[in-house]
């Protein structure tokens, strides 16, 4: 997970990384709506290709890109296969598998391609935003978009302490494993329960010490408001033109 979260550092020098997070997020959401409401497969696939190209241009290492896309790609392929063979009414081809005859349907293939295209298009858009924007800027952008502040605060707390808890979990897990805590189903179950309990205790204890430290620095229950620099007309105008052009292309397709 560290390489997912730290992917941004590879791209900090890229021009896209310096674009305001609000502009990127709003543009991505607008394109996402277009992808989801698309009735043809060409548009979602074109957005997926654009997103993938941007990710590569950002300099995202192929390994990280493969990790990010592996699950959605797998789901897309499975949807495609299942829709082709198990839905639809117009036979297109058939193959024999272990004595079974599987019939592929033209309309099933079309429906599967559409869903697979939407999955890949949507995931590509989020990948571009995620790879080119630091977490804190994304949260500030969500705050600007009027996402309730308490949600943003909780996300920032979770983000800050996620890695500490992961470290703790790994330490406890290794200690359990070295004491044969995962030998046999019953002991493994017990060890997992203990691991979850230890994590909760650490979460409680950390929250107390964090609060004490924050109160000493003036925390009164409200996190400092995110400071946004003024939106640059060039960025907003460019994003508007790009999204509009894509919308026109979608209408034409």
């Amino acid at each position, binding site marked *: 997970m560290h390489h997912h979260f730290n992917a941004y550092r590879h791209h900090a020098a890229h021009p896209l990384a310096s674009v305001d997070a609000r502009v990127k997020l709003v543009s991505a959401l607008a394109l996402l709506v277009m992808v989801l409401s698309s009735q043809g497969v060409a548009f979602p696939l074109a957005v997926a290709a654009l997103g993938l190209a941007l990710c590569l241009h950002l300099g995202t290492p192929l390994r990280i890109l493969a990790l990010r896309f592996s699950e*959605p790609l797998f789901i897309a392929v499975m949807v495609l296969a*299942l829709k082709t063979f198990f839905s639809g009414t117009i036979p297109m081809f058939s193959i024999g598998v272990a004595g079974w005859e599987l019939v592929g349907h033209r309309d099933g293939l079309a429906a599967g391609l559409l869903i697979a295209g939407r999955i890949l298009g949507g*995931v590509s858009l989020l990948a571009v935003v995620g790879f080119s924007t630091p977490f804190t800027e*994304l949260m500030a952008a969500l705050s600007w978009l009027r996402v309730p502040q*308490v949600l943003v605060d*909780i996300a920032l707390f979770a983000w800050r302490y996620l890695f500490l808890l992961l470290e703790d979990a*790994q330490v406890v*897990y290794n200690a359990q494993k070295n004491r044969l805590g995962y030998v046999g189903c019953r002991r493994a179950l017990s060890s997992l329960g203990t691991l979850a309990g230890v994590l909760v205790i650490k979460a409680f204890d950390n*929250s107390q010490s*964090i609060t004490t430290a924050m109160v000493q620095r003036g925390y009164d229950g409200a996190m400092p408001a995110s400071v946004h620099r003024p939106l640059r007309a060039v960025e907003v105008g460019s994003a508007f033109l790009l999204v509009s052009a894509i919308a026109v292309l979608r209408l034409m397709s």
Partner: protein
Amino acid sequence: MLGKLHNMRVPAPGGGGLGRGIAAAGWPVSIATVFLFLPSPAHAMHISEGILPFPWALAWFVVLVPFLALGIRQLNALAREDLSMKPLVGLLTAVVFIISCMPIPVPTAGTCSHPCGTGVSAILVGPMVSVIIAAVSLLIQALFLAHGGLSTLGANTLSMGVVGSFAGWFAFRALRRVGGSLALAGFIAGLVADWATYATTSLLLALGIRGESPLWPLVVKIVIAFLPTQLPLGILEGVITAGMVTLLYRKRPDLLVKMRVITEKEVPGNA
């Protein structure tokens, strides 16, 4: 997942990550390939980005809004009384995030599944605040891990955060009320939260992708596709929840009292 998460680090003595360790412990992962031939859609427990058509994705956000609003209101009220509430909920969100990142393969559905963790959070902070925890956890997963998605955040939070949390919380409270032990109540709460989440996910998916097909046969197919993994995974989640509650009771009963899970009288030595 932890194994994968930490694979950029120096392996610790004993080696291997948590995910691999679970697998090595022989967790029941079904390979009932016969189910591969059932006509079921492939999906993760988190509904993937792009699977739901826009109107359905929007509809689940609308359904979610009142629960989120009530959760925010309750959390703000709690935070006014106790300044440590927001950091605590943030840390519990990280715990739920870690628990719900442990992938278990679902060959019959063509994807991975995982525990929810919302049963744990519902017991500790109540179902309303647990909705917030699930929403934030799912948001981070969608943005940075491509688990779930922004457009499916409403549907995923509804199944995991709302239905999972409330089912787990009601089961726990009901069993405690009739005199059930903490371990039993925790186990059933985890089990019910997990299974309720998957049942709801199946329903939401079927509603979103059925097209002209009849609804309930499709729901049944999706449920069947997940059964080989979800049956044992629900039990796993129940055991984790029970283990967590009993460990807290033995080691830190003060925390359970603070979170109003037990009363002062139930603390060992106070009876």
